[in-house]
């Protein structure tokens, strides 16, 4: 194989198939000309993290564009328009996140998603936006999400188990509209965010603590769940168990 600078870039960009990548790598290893070049370009890439080079669209531009959509934004159902200001605020704070949905390695994305979830949780407590549909009836909450999000989040009433169902809300996480199911434990609010999962495997719940909030995160039935609250870790774990237990015997869609 002869030296080919373009192939070095293709290797760097993950654009080569496995056999070609191996061939180029084998060549580079022994080539006094290509090896430093590849190192140099790798160094360049590391020195320019995409996240830092992104621009964030000004809020005024976002508003201008939103306004330009004929009637759609204005004549949506009222809860939706009520939500609009909220979503826009969120959109702003997640501006960077929204734009990087596919671009970032997994860990960065996780960090951002968790950050968004904490922000969404905090906002839901601050503003009068805890719920968009306020009812303790799971059969009202579940259909309310229909047509608003791409998934059908499971909604179960756990009032008898010590976690009162307050209602549902739409939020904006990582550039996507995400349903949140809202529960209360004594005076503590638990937001349960449900997102499209990356795989259909069932994953153990893991506890993470961000800015003092406990987050239990798990996957099941092709969905990813994030339960966030200021209740202690033990009670949040209990919530996850009760929630999953309530779903399992029924197994309905």
């Amino acid at each position: 194989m002869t030296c080919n600078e373009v192939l070095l870039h293709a290797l760097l960009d993950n654009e080569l198939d496995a056999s070609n990548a191996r061939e180029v790598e084998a060549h580079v290893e022994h080539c006094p000309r290509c090896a430093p070049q590849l190192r140099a370009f790798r160094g360049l890439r590391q020195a320019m993290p995409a996240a830092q080079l992104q621009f964030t669209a000004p809020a005024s531009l976002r508003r201008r564009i939103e306004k330009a959509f004929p009637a759609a934004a204005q004549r949506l159902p009222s809860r939706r328009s009520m939500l609009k200001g909220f979503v826009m605020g969120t959109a702003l704070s997640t501006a960077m996140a929204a734009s990087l949905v596919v671009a970032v390695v997994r860990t960065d994305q996780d960090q951002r998603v968790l950050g968004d979830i904490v922000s969404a949780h905090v906002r839901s407590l601050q503003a009068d936006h805890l719920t968009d549909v306020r009812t303790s009836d799971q059969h009202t909450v579940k259909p309310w999400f229909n047509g608003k999000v791409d998934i059908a989040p499971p909604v179960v009433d756990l009032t008898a188990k010590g976690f009162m169902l307050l209602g549902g809300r739409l939020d904006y996480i990582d550039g996507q509209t995400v349903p949140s199911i809202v529960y209360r434990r004594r005076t503590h609010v638990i937001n349960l965010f449900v997102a499209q999962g990356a795989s259909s495997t069932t994953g153990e719940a893991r506890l993470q603590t961000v800015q003092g909030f406990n987050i239990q995160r798990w996957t099941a039935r092709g969905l990813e769940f994030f339960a966030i609250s200021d209740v202690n870790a033990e009670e949040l774990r209990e919530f996850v168990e009760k929630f999953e237990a309530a779903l399992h015997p029924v197994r309905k869609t």
Partner: protein
Amino acid sequence: MMLDRTQRRGTVLPWKAGHETRAGNGSDPQQDKARRFRDAALPYLDDVYTLARYLLRDSGDAEDAVQECYLRALRHFDTFRGPAIKPWLFAILRNVCRSEFVRRSGVLHYVNHSVDGETDNDEDARPLWQEPQGSPETEVLQERDAETIRRLVAELPQPFREAIVLREINDLSYREIADVVGVPVGTVMSRLARARSLLRAAWVAEEGRPT
């Protein structure tokens, strides 16, 4: 930043899902279309704006171009066939920017470069850059703040700037870049190689500059 392609291919296509779930909502089709478009396209506002900033190098012009891009995209949303909406938006933005370039100067700087980008007669080519063999490749790049890197990227001649922004900042594949720019993949590859050499040389040259 290495990218896991398989993971990216596996990402869901929310606008497609939206198409199905919202089709049966019973609202008027224009509204429905606008809503689907908004849900699909608005999450990419920052990406589109970023590309506009680098292409036009002016925040006011970039805002106008992005707004125009979204309006055009909404008008033509019926013709959008996927698979990915981001490159589609970029292609529209690029057309908008091209009109802007025409308006600015009456000269087609934007398209008036050699296809392979092997000449240096772009309007903004500066003697600052050296050929890659002139830049010491063993040299470790000094860390730069985002402001400086943005400027170095912005100073690249148009076809190279565009290639590197689409690849490094907007994370498009070679194929997607080729579609957006309307050139063969081979051209994308050579432009990208050249872009990185130029950028690296500019970066190294920057080290000699007083800050």
